[in-house]
């Protein structure tokens, strides 16, 4: 009796294990490398140039079918205002979809903070988006393999496979991800992958009138943004998490998180 039970259990375990092991089919990396030229997309944000017009946010939402009324966005602009009496205010009304048309700071819950013009010290805008990290925490925690980093460096979500658990959204340190309100799967900035493959700029890069957003191939030494990254002082957001973000920023202040 006991032996039969044991044998039965063994067979069960082995058979059960064959289900997950069959998941580990690997695509030959050599074949992949031979097929694609060596591109690694990277992004460059120049916060000195950003004026907070929000055209990038509007263009992104329009290009990528994110409903304008929904309070989620693939990219957004934050406003930092420091006052001379040592206070710091940050806001991002609707992610700057409509730009910044008021000087008062949006504090949420319908409250606003009026700031005296004379009291304003330094103030600037920081556009943010998915950083398409090299070691993305989000792809690590997806339970079903619905989100991944492509060989050319873009992190995407498989809309047909995502189960909507939200683990990737919790794992992203940059709050770049959200649930698509209509499709009910995880969504985020894709570097406009559908435009890149057609030789077009991403919607936000195209829309910015002031050149605050740029994209390029960081593996190409002659690419303009690679030149900037190699020769000028650039920073990244939250590098303490080891995610190795591929969106670089010029002009970040230490309080930008």
């Amino acid at each position, binding site marked *: 009796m006991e032996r039969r039970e044991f044998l039965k259990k063994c067979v069960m375990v082995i058979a059960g294990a064959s289900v997950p092991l069959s998941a580990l089919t690997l695509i030959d990396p050599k074949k992949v490398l031979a097929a694609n030229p060596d591109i690694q997309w990277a992004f460059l944000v120049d916060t000195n140039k950003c004026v907070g017009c929000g055209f990038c946010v509007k263009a992104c939402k329009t290009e990528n079918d994110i409903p304008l009324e929904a309070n989620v966005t693939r990219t957004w602009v934050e406003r930092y205002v420091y006052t001379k009496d040592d206070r710091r205010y940050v806001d991002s009304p609707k992610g700057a979809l409509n730009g910044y048309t008021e000087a008062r700071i949006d504090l949420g*819950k319908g409250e606003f903070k009026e700031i005296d013009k004379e009291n304003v010290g330094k103030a600037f805008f920081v556009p943010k988006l998915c950083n398409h990290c090299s070691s993305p925490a989000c792809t690590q925690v997806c339970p079903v393999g619905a989100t991944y980093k492509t060989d050319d460096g873009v992190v995407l979500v498989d809309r047909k496979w995502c189960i909507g658990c939200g683990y990737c959204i919790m794992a992203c340190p940059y709050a770049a991800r959200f649930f698509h309100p209509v499709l009910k799967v995880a969504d985020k900035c894709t570097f406009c992958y559908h435009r890149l493959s057609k030789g077009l700029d991403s919607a936000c890069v195209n829309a910015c009138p002031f050149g605050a957003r740029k994209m390029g191939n960081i593996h190409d030494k002659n690419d303009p943004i690679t030149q900037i990254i190699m020769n000028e002082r650039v920073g990244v957001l939250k590098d303490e998490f080891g995610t190795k973000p591929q969106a670089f920023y010029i002009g970040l202040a230490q309080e930008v998180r």
Partner: protein
Amino acid sequence: MVGQLAQHAMEVHGEAWTIKELFTLPNEEIYWSIQIVMYPFMTGLVAGAFVLSSLYHVFGIEKLKEIARFSLVFSFALLPVAMMPLLLHLQQPFRGINVMMTPHFTSAIAAFGFVFSTYGCIVATELWLVYRKYFVQTALALKAQKNRSSIDGMRLLLFTALTLGAWDISDEAVEKDHKACKIMAGIGIPVACFLHGYAGFIFGSVKANALWMTPLMPVIFICSAVVSGVALCILSYVVVQEIRKFMASRKISRWANDPNAPTVEQLEGAKHVEVMIASNYLMYFMIAALTLEILDLIFRGYTQVKSWDILREVIMERDFFKIFIMQYAIGNVLPFLIMVLPGRTVRRTTIATVLVLFGVFMMRYNVVIGGQAFSLSFSGFMDYSLPIIPHNIETFKEGLFGALTVAATPFVLFYFINKVMPAFLKEEESTH
């Protein structure tokens, strides 16, 4: 009205129950709400009930025999319920099977499918071994009946199937069952720990969340899981025994009218001994769980890393009542005092277990919701308001009624399972 509908249609998942304050990043909402609180709570009960039953089956603490069997059956009733909160939470519940089809093993959630099914097999096997003798005896008795009703006919089929062809109930066969059961229970303890440890790992490994990220999280979860499971089993056991005493004194139901049925005094006596010993173990694990949680808090307050300012405001000010009064004082210290003071009675212990269950629930709540109470910007907050009256499917699934459905289901399941595998058996009916 149409405007309201349109607004609700464009509502992002989480917006209905999140109130954002000061600067929060645009995409931040409380995405993991009450169902994600219920999930570790239910799996914790499963793991804890199993550990309690293993105290008898593996460690041979004879006095816990009755409650051990009860816990095993209850653990099996809790098992399918552990899946419910996840299915209710998923934005694409019909794709839930993807976790078993293409599991991404670097994700803690992918472990869910396999740990869960393995654990289910172990509990089912152990239950079978414990109840085989009962199945055989019932099937034989039904076979012997001359005029079977149609229900009895179905019962005969069911019990015959459940014997799985192993009809031998001689003493040697039963002894082998006993040994196999011990092995199963022995394997089951680490699997039960894994079942809940990985749930703690789900939170503890999220480096982006300043409150969740700690290596202590899996251990805290395991200890509080055992606490909750033992407490629930004690509570249910006492309640069921009270129901049985009521039935015995009024001679209601089939078993009470049997001439060999236990008397009210016998029922009372059995209950007292088992509850006293089980509650001792409850207290040991409560000490462990509380120590680890306080340790985590002390470390955070001492090292004061970047996230400390916002965490301090969440823990010490905004959530002070929920953490220190509801979870620690009412949910941990008070029941501990109730039980540790001399002259412990069954009634006092039962009150204590209710408080303990409340405390463990609050712990899950404070971890899951508390971790989302502050923004990643460290400059803003998010308040959670549990949806009570649902206005759409989402606020039903992730609201009060969704949570109550999950909480009530194990009791419903237990009622039905009890008819096939009765939690209370006479001595000669059970394998051991």
